[in-house]
């Protein structure tokens, strides 16, 4: 049990660093065991260094930076333990345009391994998709699904 945990931990930490560097264009990240001697109960902390920044604790990072770190952790999980599909509900809400581009580029690379369903309001995320579905309430209080052509405006 504990050797499987250690192995998964090492892999996840490694992949977290890879996806973090991809999304932030550099810097480094890792996972840290809070109490390495109590492997069966220890918590797991994250350690992140965005490129060029020295920060005391990651709570000082911005809303968009926190979302990108969460996304990096998600991609690291998918690398270590791929799941057939993944649905994300507005994970891009706090991102600026440049970060959406980095996120969607990464997503497109992973689309061969997993199926992604993204709920979004951001035009740049919509443009990265191969299929688009609209949900509307033509009748008040009643949802309906319609097929959407990409060139329509939001």
């Amino acid at each position, binding site marked *: 049990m504990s050797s499987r*945990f250690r*192995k*998964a*931990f090492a*892999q*996840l930490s490694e992949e977290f660093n890879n996806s973090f560097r991809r999304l932030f264009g550099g810097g480094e990240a890792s*996972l840290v065991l*809070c109490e390495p001697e109590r492997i069966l109960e220890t*918590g*797991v*902390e*994250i350690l992140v260094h965005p490129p060029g920044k020295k920060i005391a604790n990651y*709570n000082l990072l911005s809303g968009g930076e*926190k*979302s990108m*770190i*969460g996304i990096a*952790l*998600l991609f690291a*999980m*998918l690398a*270590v*333990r*791929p*799941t*057939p*599909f*993944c*649905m*994300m*509900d*507005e*994970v891009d*809400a*706090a991102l600026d345009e440049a970060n959406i581009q980095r996120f969607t580029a990464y*997503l*497109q690379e992973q*689309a061969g391994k997993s*199926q*992604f*369903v*993204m*709920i*979004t309001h951001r035009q740049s*995320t*919509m443009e990265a*998709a*191969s*299929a688009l*579905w*609209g*949900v*509307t*309430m033509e009748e*008040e*209080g*009643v*949802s*309906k699904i319609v097929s*959407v052509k990409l060139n329509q405006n939001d």
Partner: protein
Amino acid sequence: MYLKRMELLGFKSFPTKTKIMFEPGISCIVGPNGSGKSNVADALRWVLGEQSTKMLRGGKLEDVIFSGSKNRRPLGMAEVRLILDNSDHTLPIDFAEVEVTRRNFRGGVSEYAINNRSCRLKDILDLFVDTGIGADGLSLINQGRINELITVRPEERRALVEEAA
């Protein structure tokens, strides 16, 4: 394995039978605020066996059943069917297509079925156990929760590593 389609009936803001066709690759669900996009994500979470009403944004289990609108009366039942392509046999079941169903009557308990044969919740959870899919995995990220992956306490983050093991 991939999602082929999902059929909602009486689930949250979907009183009439509604089909959502999924595609491999990346697809997007778009639409105005309050139109029902997150309800689609809730439907997926629910059919996979979610038991926490909080994760479904409700107070009681019945809050997933259509509660009426200006021109429609409340319904007495919610049902979601999830159809998956299993031609690569990711799921430990001998079908090229797998259909998972969950149904809930007002005041009743949830009923589950796999390929139209009634089963228990445990059978559904067992079906998905090795795939990383399921209410607790990262295969479904609720609205507003992406930042929580890093703001939760270290003990909670441990569960991610255990999931990966």
